[in-house]
């Protein structure tokens, strides 16, 4: 066992390079945490914990390799270990997302994003994380597989199941929210996508 974890001799120049790259990843870590947990406050706590862990483990990181994937893996592990500690947490994901909806309560916020957030919270966690990594985080299937510690084929099937499930949720309106009827979410998303595609 090489003592890579012994932090007695940190190279200040290497640390500085590491820190600079890590700072650049903070926005992505926050986005991953937010989309994963749905609750902005809990998500920032999670992202901060992951940041601290990444900094403490910097000696074990091989400079020049994919730091984004490495930090996402740390965040994901942190997320799961916290989840294990608080049983029933998975049941609370959707409640957290709904609280977020109420808390935000911004009339300017597009309806479609809120609905998407709720729909996402309803997906099984393995599907949710796979979809976020590949569909939003910009990771290749291979990288996502490494982050999730599973086979590439597993990631692919999770992503495709997640996509189908999400579409089903949005079309059927099977999420619970007052005042919006079935299919409205999907229509709002289509309309927003159209607006976006024309704006660019």
């Amino acid at each position, binding site marked *: 066992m090489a003592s890579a974890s012994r932090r007695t001799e940190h190279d200040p120049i290497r640390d500085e390079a590491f820190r600079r790259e890590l700072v650049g990843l903070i926005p992505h870590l926050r986005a991953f945490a*937010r989309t994963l947990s749905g609750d902005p406050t809990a998500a920032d706590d999670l992202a901060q914990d992951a940041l601290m862990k990444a900094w403490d483990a910097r000696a074990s990181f091989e400079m020049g390799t994919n730091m984004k994937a490495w930090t996402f893996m740390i965040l994901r592990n942190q997320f799961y270990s916290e989840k294990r500690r608080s049983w029933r947490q998975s049941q609370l994901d959707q409640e957290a997302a709904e609280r977020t909806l109420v808390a935000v309560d911004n009339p300017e916020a597009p309806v*479609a*994003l809120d609905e*998407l957030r709720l729909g*996402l919270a309803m997906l099984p966690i393995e599907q949710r994380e796979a979809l976020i990594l590949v569909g*939003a985080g910009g990771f290749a299937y291979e990288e996502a597989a490494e982050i999730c510690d599973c086979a590439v084929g597993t990631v692919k099937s999770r992503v495709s199941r997640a*996509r189908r499930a999400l579409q089903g949720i949005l079309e059927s309106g099977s999420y619970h929210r007052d005042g919006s009827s079935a299919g409205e979410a999907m229509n709002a*998303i289509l309309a927003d996508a159209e607006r*976006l595609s024309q704006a660019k």
Partner: protein
Amino acid sequence: MAFAVLKPVYWRRRGNLLQSGAFRDGIERLWGRERVRSRRSMIDQQPMKRSRTKSPSLDEARLRQQAIGVRLRQMFDEVVNEPVPDEFLQILRRGDEKRSGEG
């Protein structure tokens, strides 16, 4: 024979794939051209009967998937573009102090 059936379908469907070409191009740009293309060619090879059904078409399903994809990415990018709260930077500053404290 299969070829004779598929080929006209391919061209006919290509012509009116989506009524709004601008929308499709925009979606392609946002979603990734490769993916759109590969999916389209998969869809194009469906037997003729399929394209005549009135039920929600494959094009429509694909369009919805792309719209969800665009939204999902936007949701993620929204957070990426938020200014980083100072607590995050403080963590790394503290990391520094700890080091110089140790040394």
